[in-house]
């Protein structure tokens, strides 16, 4: 079913567009945003016949991470269809409204991108056919709503509100994930259909209470249920279109959507009833009570939303099938009237510059049209007959009155429901009367507000018309939709219900009547209530939340500062400590570190060399503060290591080590010139003993490990390389054939790393202003003779010899020790010698010294050699070779791998010279600037 994917993914892909076309004007942005949504809406409506009329279940799935049970699976049943309609329909209206609402200075592209992202996330939540996928989208709604609430990121309130919303809904999302995983593990599948069919299995599971609580945590945080309700009023710092969309119609409904979704799987137990209905009831009352006293228009609406969400939650909690139908119905109705009210509040804010009810009044003179719309919507909210709110509230009263539960307290629910109804009427009345009627405050007269652009009111009109239409012709307008959604929710047969305005003079009607009259009475005599409320000792939830967050941050900060105090030494110690402990443990557990593998014979010179290396290494440590001495010591170590490679049949390594040795020494000396040349003693005794312990235990451990490996027989895969070196690679030097042929891809990677390192060093040293030392470390001025003549002359004589040797080593590398790496280093050393002997200017006047392209060319050459074999139909970097006859030289074998090696050679030359010449030029640049 590609339609399903299209519906969900259209907004997701389109989320990129508004930012791209941002420069093309505000209208373009709005149109580009609206079109995909319209398209998705039309696609959705196109599925109406099959989903709503035939009751089909549309499904589409693509594996994502099937091993983890995560599928990109979507379903469209009645419930999902209803929510998708709300999301896309109201979304479209919000886009139109938002276009006129945003100021010219606001970034429309960012706003609409985020809005579309949120829309896609919401669609993903309601259409998911996989529990894990649902959680993914659920978190995406949290994140996108965080960004939307914090859209005006310059305002502290917006940032704070966004953070609060993210913390709570994000934490709820984690709880939901845990719950979902528990459910998935219990059922054995994350497939929604399977889970919904396994309700009995879940409910009888020992961990059912835990699953339920975890899922409900997700629901209650998202739907702003007590005691997590306080984030919603703070989220009102978002732009009003966001409030209208997220905080009335969609995101907060995600929670109750989940209640509906999991209804067949989780509902029906006493625990469900107690938890869901009591939380719903508390939220219903608390929200309504708080709403009455809000002075902020959007605050009032926010608390009213909390109250209505409580109502829906309560209905789901009542666990009767009719209550669930009523809940779904109220979802539709609340979305329509509350979105329109938010938009009206936005218009008022937009036109008068304030949302404070105390500063508003008599607006009917300026905004007659808006007044009419707001009044109708408020009446729907209050539950006045002939409007949609009345119908669902009527059903709610009926269910509340019929509740046989709570034992002898069975009068409690209907009474509290009626009181909530009264409060709802009262705050609705306050919203209309305080704003549109009464005297006009002086400040407003001067402001002279006027009706907004015609199109800005269209979305409100559409929604209000829907309120009316549903209220007057419920069965026609909303009947099939409600039936389909309720069927999907209940997962079975629908109970008997009738969508009529007049059911006769029954208990629910009386309750409605009572609520209406009581509400008017409360509004009329509200002054004492306001006084009472002012003295009301209330725990300030946001403050408590802030304190908790601050405490958490402080604890985390202390912990982080303990671990991460910025001292590199400490990090390395922390890293080394486990290594040392593991080493010690390993040494203790394996006493047989000297295996029975025959030892190779020892000779006196090797012992001598080892002693020298050990002494030099120790001297490096002891004399490290005399930095040049330390440098000479590591040269000795390097020389011995190279000789060891030679002795142990690794001439290639010896050659490489020797040439790297000298470039390293040059490099360190170049750096040492700038750095202080003597160290200071600053480690404490304790530091040094700790380091001694760490280094000794790791050193001994590594040594024993090496001994263990060397004296135990091991399997090797090298037989293949030795056997195939000549037939497969055309070279006798197996090490080189491995480098350029068998493992050529690795080598390509390595020279790339080398090139990147060189470029990185170049960039690091860019614009680095270092002071040149005038005196040497002992306080003597430097010698005046820049480059002794004899050195210059002899170095020039050495260059051709060295280059000849390098070429020789490069060419013969395939068959004898040598190769691109070594030849490259030798060439680099020979050229660096010219730098040392004759200076940068002399060299740069004679040698092309732009090493960047050289490095790039080398890597490219090596890569292209590989690609050439690809073109010829062989795998990447397959080498071919041919024997040719050269006069004088004799029979000569030419392998394509040699071209690869040439690439290696060029890269190494370029990278080494790039690094050293850059370091060397540091002082030259300084001097030039100085002069």
């Amino acid at each position: 079913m590609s339609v399903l994917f299209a519906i969900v993914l259209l907004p997701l892909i389109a989320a990129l567009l508004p930012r791209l076309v941002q420069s093309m004007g505000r209208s373009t942005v709005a149109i580009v945003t609206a079109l995909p949504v319209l398209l998705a809406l039309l696609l959705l409506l196109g599925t109406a016949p099959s989903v709503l009329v035939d009751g089909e279940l549309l499904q589409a799935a693509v594996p994502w991470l099937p091993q983890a049970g995560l599928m990109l699976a979507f379903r469209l049943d009645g419930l999902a269809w209803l929510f998708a309609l709300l999301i896309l329909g109201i979304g479209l209206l919000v886009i139109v409204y938002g276009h006129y609402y945003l100021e010219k200075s606001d970034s429309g592209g960012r706003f609409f991108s985020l809005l579309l992202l949120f829309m896609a996330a919401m669609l993903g939540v309601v259409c998911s056919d996989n529990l894990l996928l649902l959680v993914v989208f659920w978190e995406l709604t949290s994140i996108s709503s965080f960004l939307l609430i914090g859209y005006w990121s310059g305002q502290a309130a917006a940032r704070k509100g966004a953070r609060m919303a993210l913390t709570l809904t994000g934490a709820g999302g984690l709880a939901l994930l845990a719950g979902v995983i528990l459910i998935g593990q219990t059922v054995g599948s994350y497939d929604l259909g399977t889970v919904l069919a396994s309700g009995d299995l879940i409910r009888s599971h020992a961990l059912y209470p835990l699953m339920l609580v975890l899922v409900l945590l997700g629901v209650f945080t998202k739907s702003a249920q007590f005691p997590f309700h306080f984030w919603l009023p703070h989220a009102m710092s978002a732009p009003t279109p966001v409030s209208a969309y997220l905080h009335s119609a969609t995101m907060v409904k995600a929670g109750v959507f989940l209640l509906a979704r999991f209804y067949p799987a989780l509902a029906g137990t006493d625990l469900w009833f107690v938890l869901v209905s009591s939380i719903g009831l508390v939220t219903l009352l608390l929200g309504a009570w708080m709403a009455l006293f809000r002075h902020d228009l959007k605050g009032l609406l926010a608390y009213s939303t909390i109250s209505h969400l409580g109502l829906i939650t309560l209905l789901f909690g009542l666990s009767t099938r009719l209550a669930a139908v009523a809940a779904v119905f109220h979802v539709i109705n609340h979305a329509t009237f509350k979105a329109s009210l938010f938009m009206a509040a936005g218009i008022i804010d937009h036109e008068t510059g304030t949302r404070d009810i105390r500063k508003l009044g008599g607006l009917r003179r300026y905004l007659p049209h808006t007044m009419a719309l707001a009044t109708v919507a408020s009446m729907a909210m209050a539950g006045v007959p002939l409007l949609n709110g009345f119908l669902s509230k009527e059903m709610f009263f009926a269910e509340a009155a019929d509740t046989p539960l709570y034992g002898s307290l069975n009068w409690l629910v209907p009474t509290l429901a009626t009181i909530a109804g009264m409060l709802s009427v009262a705050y609705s009345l306050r919203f209309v009367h305080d704003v549109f009627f009464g005297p006009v405050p002086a400040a407003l007269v001067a402001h002279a507000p006027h009706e907004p652009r015609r199109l800005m009111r269209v979305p409100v009109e559409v929604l209000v018309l829907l309120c009316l239409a549903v209220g007057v012709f419920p069965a026609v307008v909303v009947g099939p939709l409600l039936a389909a959604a309720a069927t999907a929710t209940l997962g079975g047969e629908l109970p008997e219900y009738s969508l009529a305005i007049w059911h006769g003079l029954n208990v629910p009607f009386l309750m409605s009547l009572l609520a209406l009259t009581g509400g008017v009475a409360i509004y009329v005599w509200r002054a004492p209530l306001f006084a009472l409320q002012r003295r009301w000792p209330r725990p300030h939830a946001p403050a408590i939340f802030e304190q908790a967050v601050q405490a958490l941050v402080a604890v985390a900060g202390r912990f982080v500062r303990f671990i991460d105090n910025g001292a590199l030494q400490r990090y390395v110690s922390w890293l080394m400590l486990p290594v040392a402990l593991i080493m010690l443990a390993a040494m203790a557990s394996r006493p047989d570190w000297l295996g029975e593998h025959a030892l190779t014979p020892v000779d006196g010179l090797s012992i001598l060399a080892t002693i020298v290396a050990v002494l030099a290494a120790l001297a490096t440590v002891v004399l490290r503060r005399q930095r040049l001495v330390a440098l000479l010591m590591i040269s000795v170590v390097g020389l011995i290591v190279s000789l060891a490679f030679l002795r142990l049949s690794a001439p290639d390594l010896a050659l490489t080590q020797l040439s790297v040795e000298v470039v390293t020494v040059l490099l360190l000396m170049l750096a040492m010139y700038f750095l202080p040349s003597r160290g200071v003693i600053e480690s404490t005794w304790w530091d040094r003993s700790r380091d001694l312990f760490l280094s000794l235990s790791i050193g001994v451990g590594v040594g024993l490990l090496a001994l263990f490996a060397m004296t135990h027989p091991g399997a090797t895969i090298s037989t293949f390389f030795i056997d195939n070196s000549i037939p497969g690679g055309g070279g006798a030097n197996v090490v080189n054939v491995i480098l350029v042929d068998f493992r050529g891809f690795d080598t390509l990677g390595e020279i790339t790393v080398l090139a990147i390192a060189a470029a990185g060093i170049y960039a690091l040293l860019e614009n680095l202003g270092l002071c040149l030392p005038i005196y040497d470390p002992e306080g003597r001025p430097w010698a005046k003779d820049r480059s002794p003549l004899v050195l210059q002359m002899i170095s020039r004589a050495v260059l051709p010899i060295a280059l000849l040797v390098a070429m020789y080593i490069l060419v013969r590398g395939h068959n004898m020790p040598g190769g691109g790496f070594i030849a490259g280093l030798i060439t680099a050393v020979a050229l660096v010698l010219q730098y040392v002997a004759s200076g940068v200017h002399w060299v740069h006047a004679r040698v092309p010294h732009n090493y960047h392209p050289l490095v790039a060319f080398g890597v490219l050459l090596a890569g292209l050699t590989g690609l050439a074999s690809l073109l010829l139909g062989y795998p990447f970097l397959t080498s071919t070779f041919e024997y040719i006859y050269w006069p004088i030289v004799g029979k000569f074998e030419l392998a394509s791998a040699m071209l690869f090696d040439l690439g290696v050679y060029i890269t190494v030359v370029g990278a080494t010279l790039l690094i050293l010449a850059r370091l060397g030029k540091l002082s030259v640049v300084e001097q030039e600037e100085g002069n």
Partner: protein
Amino acid sequence: MSVWVEGLVAALILIGAGFTLVGSIGLVRLQDVYTRLHGPTKATTLGVGGIILASLVFFTAQTGVLSVHEVLITLFLFITAPVSAHLLAKTAMHRQEKKVQSTRGEPWQQ
């Protein structure tokens, strides 16, 4: 390989190694850095030259073709050794390293 060649090689090796050793002994035994410069730069270079010559004779006799490596190494060594020594002497003078009585002249005062 004839006995004569072998004898020649052995002799060259022993002479070379002997000079090398003497150079190093000088490096240790002599009194100040200026005199110590003499040991390695002269004796050792000569010694290594002897050993390389031995190798040249040995491999040329073995393969019948003139062994080029050794020539190259010798050439290289004999070109560079004086330069190294020169620079080191310059360094010692620049740094005014301590000298013993018998080392005459104070060139850095010129």
